[in-house]
């Protein structure tokens, strides 16, 4: 039984017109913002596949930007997302690409400010559900439904054990964990989905492990 609750049918409350091209797009922008950790100053958006064909009519561009502004899919301000972003001084470029993609509703985002940059690829998989598929060149699979930790590190033996030990001490259950790296011994990205939120102190203690470059908690 895929659908359990009557509220899966009488709901969600959302800004129209499309659960995949509008509500899903808001959630993709929101997911990228959570990974970036703050509001970006410069935003590049490239739409692929069906997103590229129809983004103007579905308001997919406005929706992604509203998500980057921390809005959720039922926020009535979504249609004004671009104007609001402009008033925040955010610089935006929006375009499309004909390149073939594995999934029809794909968007690439590049988020920047003076402190850093995030390259993000995400897909809207239907019914408003979304996934991040690539972060800074690493293949990933992250949804926006569970808390997660993104950990960038230098790939060497023992690091994973030292990280998971810190979660074990706090009694935090890991639901899924993926590791991807660009090449052996080079930098790698670990994504750990957890059942509970990871406390700030644990995140700080992970930052002190030698070889760890960056720990980003996502609630």
């Amino acid at each position, binding site marked *: *039984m*895929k*659908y*359990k*609750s*009557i*509220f*899966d*049918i*009488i*709901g*969600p*409350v*959302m*800004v*129209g*017109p*499309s*659960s995949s091209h*509008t*509500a899903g797009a808001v959630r993709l922008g929101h997911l990228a913002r959570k990974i970036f950790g703050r509001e970006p100053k410069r935003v590049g958006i490239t739409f692929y596949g*069906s997103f590229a*064909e*129809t983004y*103007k*009519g*579905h*308001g997919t561009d*406005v929706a992604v930007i509203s998500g980057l502004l921390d809005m959720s899919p*039922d926020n*009535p301000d*979504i*249609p004004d997302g671009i104007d609001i972003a402009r008033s925040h001084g955010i610089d935006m470029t929006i375009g499309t690409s004909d390149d073939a993609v594995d999934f029809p509703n794909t968007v690439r985002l590049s988020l920047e400010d003076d402190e850093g940059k995030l390259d993000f690829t995400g897909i809207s998989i*239907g*019914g408003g559900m979304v996934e991040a598929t690539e972060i800074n060149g690493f293949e990933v699979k992250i949804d926006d439904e569970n808390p997660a930790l993104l950990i960038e590190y230098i790939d060497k033996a023992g690091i994973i054990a030292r990280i998971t030990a810190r979660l074990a001490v706090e009694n935090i259950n890991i639901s899924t964990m993926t590791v991807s790296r660009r090449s052996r011994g080079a930098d790698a990205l670990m994504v750990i989905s957890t059942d509970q939120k990871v406390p700030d102190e644990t995140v700080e203690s992970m930052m002190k492990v030698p070889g760890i470059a960056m720990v980003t908690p996502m609630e």
Partner: protein
Amino acid sequence: MKLLTTMHMWIEEASERECSLGETMLQHEMWHSETEETVILERMEQQLQVMEKACERGLAGVTSRAGLSGMDGKRLNEYRLRNTTLLGPIVSQAVAYGVAINEVNASMGVICATPTAGSSGVVPAVLFAVRDALTLDRRAQLQFLVTAGGVGLMLANNASISGAGGGCQAEIGSATAMAACALTEALGGTPEQCGHAVALALKALLGLTCDPVAGLVEVPCIKRNGTAAATAITCAEMVMAGVESKIPVDEVVLAMGSIGRMMPVALKETALGGLAQTETARRMTQQLRETGRIDTKN
């Protein structure tokens, strides 16, 4: 309580408990989500208020971002208030409300997907058209939505409620079946009769394709929300007159699912066939790509 997975199981359970489908579904929701009745009804009240606001906005008049649709809900409402309609006061309201609510969806307004965004007008349109005439109090209106939600669950789990998965019969068809069932219950029909209403409504729309112009949830979606609301009322009234489905409801549900799987991908939300590939639709698609707007005049 046990997990209700088919219309038949749900109807049997209601008959055993000697209560309505809606009451049984409410108990079912309380049981599997471990939530109190008041919490569920409060949440449904919020969904109902979103539907009411959307209807009000649509009747005041909205247009879509691309300019392909809008203002028809207002037009229909004014017409029915000025004229003696062939549809009569109730069905003409249902048509106007269905269109109005779905125009709000197309205009990036806030709606409650029922079961999807593209078909979000049908169930509330029928409810708002009949609630005064049938003197449904607030509790009865919430139960109307609970019953409709229960039908949607059976359809979603045994067939499909997505245009990409099963064509428009799965979206508008499902919404119509949900509304027909809830209305039959509100009219005092038995659980068996409610099941017949689902079967009749589905059969009215079996095979309906999803071929939206320019891939937008506007043409034919919006007008279909109006005509489907009228169909739902028709089916409920047929059932109340004693008409029954010759094919049991769960078999009709499975037929909808199987037709959906057989339907070519070109007619399942991809805009690669049918209405979406007419000469005019192709010109509109081109215009949207180039200018971000569609001029419906030329």
